[in-house]
């Protein structure tokens, strides 16, 4: 008997698989990726007696005939990595459907333990089964668990160990598919054996069955043309006799086996199940009430996120400010130390600027986890599907887009719920067009600087709507070019509503937030340092420094009344000169020919480089180039400077460019991670920047032509 076991948890989505996984492994979890796909691979370890078990939480799957990437991953793991035991987590209150996967696992001949989860709910619905009988049908022990209370987990482990020790006790029951199919199966099995086409570890009957089911992956395993021809012949014959595809007939055969087993083992069955769920659904998915209720809920989520998040953000900001002061205080006042500048302005400032969003992200994910775990998210997708379908997206795309108004990074992470890769990529590509919270300071600086009071709200509204319209157009464009193809047909299980558990919700929330901190954090640290270097080097020439020093001394010697103020002005002028001299300044100057058509000058160009780090840096960077010192979105002196240098038309162009252009580096990093390709991340960066240039140029040049610029 091995002292190390690999145990795979399989099961339908919504069967409470993750709750069992969390209950078994607690905090000893590790999240990685399956090679080549973005599906997460969750593993945890635990000790049971002398045995060390590695538990793998497979993605939820309805069947072993892979439909989505996640199902493919789950299936390949079971077939190729051959875990010592597979535990099939079954929602006991929805038994027949959940047993479909169990039947397939049984046919595959894997060492199997059936875990009847949520057995309390099943009992409450008046369902009870002669489990011993059922267990004999499936050739696997059955354990009752209540995942959210942690009940039955000990027994589950005991059974797992037992099954690992004794292996599969064959022969388990074989499903009879009826005379016609069985005859074809026999022919195929014989041919497979004759042609020596049975890869190691596969049973001939299972292979034959999968071939008849037209399973692409299994089809690729078998190269012999004789077998392929026979499969086609058999399928054609069966279609003729049965009047349906063999795959459908086989599925029906499995369901026949299940309902037979359930009928024999059923002790009582009361038809009261789902009643409360249906009652909630008749309101929540109602044609009239559904959308208003959905919007109200979303409003609540955002309200919660930002009202509760704001003070926490303030706290973190203060914390980083304090840290910056402490670290900066290690050097004497006015020290020009490069290390100090790197630590305080580059690293603490840069990383702090991103960590500040953590409370919002945590809260948003908390709310989403609650909605997801309660079963509402499936309904939200159902409600929105019709609208989203018109723009070539899936009902489930709506949630990420909505989150995008808060922050694009969690929005892109939220696209994981989309099964179809084309739907998911399209959503990822257009999510940055939802104007995020970090872009708001830019609008609130510029709008009051250029436009009369009664224009403020409508203008802001126009900007947000422009983003939405562009997202719709971009989605349509992507769907008809690079991401052409049918959107996944809308088929979705609506799980019964249930009370989310605190532990489950917290773990879900932390999983996502941890990824944000860890992965984006490392990239952001690197780019922060790079941006710092761009704005710091090359350092101002000694002649320049000497010139400003001389100016300072002159003021000090003159004994002016406004000495302080004059000194400050010199500091600002020096900062401007230094910035212009730096790489960032030079890039800004170099960018001028390109950004000129939009009505921008080198200063805006420099600020745009800052905006790439994080959108709100745009405002601070403008403050530096216009030498007004510390600037924020309420800075009137900065507004005066802007008014002197730009027309309202250029101002509109600036806002539009910031709305559409180059998503911040955290977005690029997360797109790269989630799409698992630099190509898509760079397409997003390039595509949106080009789009922004076109939009801003058209608006600016059009305005100039129409003489609106003034």
């Amino acid at each position: 008997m091995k002292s190390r076991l690999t145990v795979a948890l399989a099961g339908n989505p919504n069967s409470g698989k993750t709750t069992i996984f969390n209950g078994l492994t607690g905090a000893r979890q590790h999240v990685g990726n399956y090679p080549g796909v973005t599906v997460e691979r969750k593993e945890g370890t635990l000790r049971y007696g002398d045995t060390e078990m590695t538990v793998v939480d497979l993605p939820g799957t309805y069947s072993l005939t892979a439909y989505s990437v996640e199902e493919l991953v789950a299936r390949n793991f079971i077939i190729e990595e051959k875990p010592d035991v597979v535990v099939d987590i079954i929602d006991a209150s929805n038994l027949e459907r959940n047993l479909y996967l169990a039947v397939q696992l049984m046919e595959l001949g894997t060492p199997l333990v059936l875990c009847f989860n949520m057995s309390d709910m099943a009992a409450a619905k008046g369902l009870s089964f002669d489990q011993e009988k059922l267990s004999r049908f499936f050739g696997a022990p059955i354990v009752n668990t209540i995942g959210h209370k942690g009940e039955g987990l000990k027994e589950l482990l005991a059974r797992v160990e037992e099954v690992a020790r004794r292996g599969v006790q064959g022969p388990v029951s074989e499903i009879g598919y009826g005379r016609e199919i069985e005859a074809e199966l026999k022919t195929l099995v014989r041919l497979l054996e004759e042609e020596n086409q049975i890869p190691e570890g596969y049973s001939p009957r299972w292979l034959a069955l999968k071939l008849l089911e037209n399973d692409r992956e299994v089809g690729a395993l078998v190269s012999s043309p004789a077998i392929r021809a026979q499969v086609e012949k058999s399928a054609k014959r069966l279609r003729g006799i049965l009047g349906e595809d063999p795959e459908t007939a086989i599925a029906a055969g499995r369901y026949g086996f299940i309902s037979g087993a359930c009928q024999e083992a059923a002790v009582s069955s009361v038809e009261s199940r789902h009643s409360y769920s249906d009652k909630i659904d008749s309101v929540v998915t109602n044609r009239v009430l559904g959308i208003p209720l959905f919007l109200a809920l979303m409003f609540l989520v955002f309200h919660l996120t930002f009202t509760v998040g704001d003070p926490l953000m303030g706290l973190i900001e203060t914390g980083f400010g304090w840290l910056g002061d402490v670290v900066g205080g290690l050097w004497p006042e006015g020290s020009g130390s490069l290390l100090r500048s790197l630590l305080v302005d580059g690293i603490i400032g840069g990383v702090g600027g991103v960590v500040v969003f953590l409370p919002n992200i945590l809260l948003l994910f908390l709310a989403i986890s609650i909605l997801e775990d309660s079963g509402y998210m499936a309904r939200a997708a159902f409600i929105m599907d019709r609208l989203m379908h018109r723009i070539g997206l899936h009902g489930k795309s709506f949630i990420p887009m909505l989150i995008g108004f808060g922050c694009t990074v969690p929005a892109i992470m939220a696209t994981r719920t989309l099964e179809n890769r084309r739907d998911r990529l399209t959503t990822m590509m257009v999510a940055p067009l939802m104007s995020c919270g970090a872009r708001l300071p830019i609008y609130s600086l510029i709008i009051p600087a250029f436009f009369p009071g009664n224009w403020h709200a409508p203008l802001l509204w126009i900007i947000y709507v422009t983003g939405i319209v562009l997202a719709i157009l971009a989605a349509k464009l992507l769907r008809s070019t690079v991401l052409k193809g049918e959107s996944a047909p809308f088929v979705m299980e609506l799980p019964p509503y249930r009370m989310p558990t605190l532990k489950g919700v917290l773990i879900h929330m932390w999983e996502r937030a941890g990824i944000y901190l860890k992965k984006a954090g490392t990239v952001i640290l690197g780019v922060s340092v790079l941006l710092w270097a761009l704005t710091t080097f090359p350092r101002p020439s000694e002649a320049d420094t000497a010139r400003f020093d001389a100016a300072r001394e002159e003021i000090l010697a003159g004994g002016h009344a406004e000495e302080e103020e004059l000194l400050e002005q010199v500091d600002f002028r020096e900062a401007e000169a230094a910035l212009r001299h730096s790489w960032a300044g030079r890039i800004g100057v170099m960018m001028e020919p390109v950004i000129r058509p939009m009505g921008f000058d080198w200063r805006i160009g420099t600020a745009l480089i800052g905006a790439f780090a994080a959108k709100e840096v745009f405002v601070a960077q403008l403050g530096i180039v216009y030498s007004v010192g510390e600037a924020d979105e309420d800075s009137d002196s900065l507004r005066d400077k802007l008014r002197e240098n730009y027309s309202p038309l250029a101002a509109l162009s600036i806002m539009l460019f910031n709305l559409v252009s180059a998503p911040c580096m955290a977005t690029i990093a997360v797109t790269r991670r989630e799409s698992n390709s630099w190509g898509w991340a760079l397409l997003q960066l390039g595509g949106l920047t080009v789009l922004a240039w076109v939009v801003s140029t058209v608006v600016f040049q059009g305005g100039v032509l129409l003489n609106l610029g003034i």
Partner: protein
Amino acid sequence: MPLTLIQPGRSVRIVSVNAGSGLQGRLSALGLVPGAEVTVLQNCLRGPFILGLGCGGRIALGRGVANRIEVE
């Protein structure tokens, strides 16, 4: 007749499912196979469907998918 024509509240039996092989597999896995009893819980004139399955599940279907399911 196609599932789309069934009024909410009525129970019917699936006769055939005519979808592409990928979708067909998914529908089978969810229990929508010939012979299965389903109850239509929601069917607005446009927009998706909610189906109740004999064994207790609830499934939302797009209209396009529902159109490919023949029932009696």
